[in-house]
């Protein structure tokens, strides 16, 4: 990636991402019929699952970028890790918030500690929070290395958290397994779901790029680079 002023392609990608989000919203709220049991609240599913997938993608980017930074010490990898970490934190917040809205309607409670995916996302949210705090309050001379190590530790802990909660004896498996059990019978459900996933992934990619670009500007100001000089 390049730290120069955004090109027409960057602007185009941003417009496309926002158009996809608008289309997804139209589909979810105007086209898809109400689900029989849950009613209108079920529509939160499209943003909840799509945000969760984008969040997992962000964890993957943090992991790869952190490993790359530790191996090569290229500042671009560090900037990418910061950008993906912050966007992942926002996505994780969206997943938790929408999950709680759904949970309050379905289970009459905001949070279930027996539910593996909810607890995994809470832990993931806490890891992203600590990652963000470290980036802001760590030793400035060592933040890049420290953030990368924390990124790797967080990424390898998340699957262990998920597996360990699944084995808890009181785990009631309340979380709906819509995709696994072949749900979404109406074709419009699938179209809305697919569109939401693509829209959220595109929006996340654009947000990561914007944060990367801002990070590269901060970096150039810090080291006193000339405008237009490449960071990587």
């Amino acid at each position: 990636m390049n730290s120069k002023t955004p090109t027409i392609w960057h602007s185009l990608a941003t417009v496309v991402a926002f158009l996809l989000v608008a289309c997804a919203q139209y589909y979810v709220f105007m086209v898809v019929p109400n689900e029989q049991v849950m009613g209108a609240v079920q529509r939160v599913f499209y943003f909840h699952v799509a945000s969760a997938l984008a969040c997992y993608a962000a964890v993957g980017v943090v992991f790869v970028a952190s490993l790359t930074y530790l191996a090569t010490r290229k500042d671009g990898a560090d900037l990418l890790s910061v950008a993906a970490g912050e966007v992942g934190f926002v996505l994780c917040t969206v997943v938790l918030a929408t999950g709680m809205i759904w949970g309050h309607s379905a289970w009459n409670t905001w949070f279930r500690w027996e539910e593996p995916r909810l607890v995994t996302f809470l832990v993931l949210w806490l890891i992203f929070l600590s990652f963000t705090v470290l980036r802001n309050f760590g030793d400035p001379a060592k933040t890049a290395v420290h953030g990368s190590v924390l990124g790797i530790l967080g990424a390898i802990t998340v699957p262990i958290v998920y597996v360990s909660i699944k084995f808890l004896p009181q785990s009631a498996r309340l979380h709906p397994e819509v995709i696994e059990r072949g749900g979404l019978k109406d074709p419009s459900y699938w179209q809305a779901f697919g569109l939401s996933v693509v829209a959220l992934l595109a929006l996340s990619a654009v947000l990561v790029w914007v944060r990367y670009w801002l990070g590269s500007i901060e970096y150039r100001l810090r080291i006193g680079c000339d405008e237009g000089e490449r960071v990587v």
Partner: protein
Amino acid sequence: MGRWLRVLRLLISKEFAVELRGKEYTTLLFCTTLVIGALIGAGVSSAVLDAATTTKIYPMLVWVVFLITTTTSSARASETELDGRGFEGLLLAGVTGAQLYLSKVAVTTVMFFITWVLLLAVTSAALDQTLSPVYGTLLALGAGAALTLSALVVLVSGVAGTSTLRGVLMPLLTLPLIFPLFFAGVEITTECLLYGALTEGSIWPGVITVLCAAFLLVGVNSYEAVVKG
């Protein structure tokens, strides 16, 4: 390999000598354990719970106290070397990051294990729990947990040690990463207290082993980068 192990042994001796001379970390760790253990005992007894309920919540209480006291007290684990630039000196003398890391993990594991034993003694007395039939299993669990926790804490203390928020950052960075250890610890302790032994085929020792291996792997390979920056 012989030389590598000899250097490691010397580093472990140095770590113990430094700790026994200052005793700051030991004092902080043990006093916090005693104070929080006593507070928990007083709090639970004030709720006037029946014996069965107290036994049910005992594993959770012990693990919460253990994890909080160890992580909050460990902000100083690498402080001497980080402040006095001791790491640079040792690295220049040819000591590897892996040796430094493993020596600190060894000493911290011993400290955490003693803390665990102390905690079991304090809380079992305060909450009237009979642990003698399962003491062997709980000690083995404590050893595994102490190693896993110290593998993470030593690495994170290198990260948090140079931050302006060092005391606050340590638990904030460590606690989210040890949720699997918390779940495994509570489940094993509950199985021991309710059934008198670890259930056959229990997956929890495996969870602790995997977590410990992952933390040690990351620590051995990245500790030098963490302290050098």
